[in-house]
């Protein structure tokens, strides 16, 4: 947690930021109504905590969104942090936008890797973490993985490497909403027992509720002290915050109507996300 802050006040602050971040996604969808909303909304609470309380670029902290299709969440949080003007959100979906369907570091400040093809981010994050260690920088490298992308063999190569080279400055966060585009992860390609599998690869594993800000903060604080790479299994709900369709695979790629967006905006403004 951010040093010197009161826990309850800080959590209320972060909840407000997470609400605004979801509203930023709605703003993008009003410009262009299609996107990978399900995963973006399951991830937003986690990356809100990361971006507001943990990431310090100067220190060498880095965040890699391995499941690059969740970039709506990253664009929304970067705008909320003021990394780029919110007016850019209104260009989502337009020709030559700085906000393509998967992130491009050369188009938008704050993006550290051009992800989108699954199974790439963890290897890139290993390179960043290794480099920090070579240069004796304190920074931690965080990488957000999707649960569907854990089927990619390249992730398991990277899990081996990080353990073998003991990258204790690397934190992987699994956005475990248990759904991928065609249905349940457990039906399509089971990744369980994911905690045991990753432990067997030599990582420290935490399992948390990925929408509980206290648990997110506690896990991220613990990760700072670990002497081995840390894997946080964040149990989440796909589409968390949607009025309809949360927890269903269909929200993976959402094609919203204007009424959907008005309803979602009103709901978020009125109630936030429980």
């Amino acid at each position: 947690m951010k040093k010197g802050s009161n826990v309850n006040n800080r959590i209320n602050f972060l909840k407000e930021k997470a609400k605004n971040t979801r509203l930023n996604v709605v703003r993008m969808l009003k410009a262009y109504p299609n996107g990978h909303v399900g995963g973006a909304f399951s991830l937003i609470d986690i990356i809100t905590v990361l971006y507001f309380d943990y990431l310090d670029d100067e220190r060498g902290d880095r965040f890699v969104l391995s499941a690059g299709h969740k970039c709506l969440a990253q664009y929304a949080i970067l705008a909320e942090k003021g990394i780029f003007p919110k007016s850019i959100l209104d260009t989502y979906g337009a020709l030559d936008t700085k906000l393509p369907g998967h992130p491009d570091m050369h188009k938008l400040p704050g993006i550290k890797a051009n992800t989108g093809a699954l199974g790439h981010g963890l290897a890139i994050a290993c390179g960043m973490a290794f480099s920090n260690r070579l240069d004796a920088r304190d920074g931690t490298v965080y990488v957000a993985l999707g649960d569907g992308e854990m089927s990619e063999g390249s992730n398991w190569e990277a899990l081996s490497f990080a353990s073998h080279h003991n990258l204790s400055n690397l934190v992987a966060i699994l956005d475990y909403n248990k759904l991928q585009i065609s249905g349940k992860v457990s039906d399509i390609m089971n990744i369980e027992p994911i905690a045991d599998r990753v432990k067997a690869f030599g990582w420290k594993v935490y399992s948390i509720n990925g929408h509980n800000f206290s648990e997110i903060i506690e896990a991220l604080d613990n990760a700072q002290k670990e002497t081995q790479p840390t894997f946080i299994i964040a149990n989440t709900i796909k589409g968390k915050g949607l009025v309809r369709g949360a927890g269903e695979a269909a929200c993976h790629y959402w094609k919203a109507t204007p009424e959907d967006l008005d309803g979602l905006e009103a709901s978020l403004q009125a109630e936030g996300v429980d």
Partner: protein
Amino acid sequence: MALEYFDPRKVFGNSVYELAKDNEDIVVISADSGGSSGFADFMKEFPERYVECGIMEQFAVGFSSGLATQGKIPVFCAIAPFVTLRPYEMFRNDIGYMRQNAKIVGRNSGITYSDLGSTHHSLEDFAIISMIPEVVVLAPQDPNEIKGAVKAMIEYKGPVYMRIGNPPIPNILPDEEFVIGKAKQLNQGEQLTVISVGTATENAYFAVQELNAEGYSIDHLGLGTVVPLDEEAIINSVKKTGKILTVEEHYEKGGIGSQISDMLMLNGVQVEKFQKIAVPHEYATSGPYKDILAKYQLDKEGIKNKIKNILI
């Protein structure tokens, strides 16, 4: 005077090692491939900058990208198909699309791993890596040029693919600065333009030298760079001779022959004859290197015969 032969992998590895003495950003990546890439001295001298990844080339390329984001200059060298075909998407996205200052080196390229069969040949790397925008593709032609190309590759800020061979090769070019994108004029002539690249240049060079003695007049350009192509040198030569022969240890589709013919057509340059010596589109056979070269007319005699046929 007898020619002195050098192992191209050792020349490469030693060149990186020498530069790394002054450039602390250089980090060598191995996929159980460092020892065979000429990095023995580097491993001994700079163990903290020598990163063993084990046999996982997809990871090694992505990892290189991550290092580069933080200002390192990763140099990843392994057998050519394993750094190009296997991790192609990582090469395209993590190195190319991210415009990383990373250096990927394919050794034992072409058919130099002749006896190990098609899995270990690399006959499509010019084609597939050239398709990735903004990646420089180098193919130094002799030990001197390897040394120069390594220096140029490290000094260049951006993604580079370099391919080198395996069997010992002699120095045939002057020990001078390597300029990315500049062809070397290896012989002046009027009848035919011969353009060779990388490992194919040695035999082309000696073929042309012998034909000189027989009274032929051949313009020989040696390419140490495939991308960017030295269009000016090629066009000027072809305008003079009207005939062209390309020589490469690569498939005839997609290699320098294809790229040069495209380039000449787009520039409206007419040629009277255009011939290629390259490997036909098949899984190349296995056997002694010299025998495979002869089978595909890539040996000195094959090149001489081809040139004579063109000039009949």
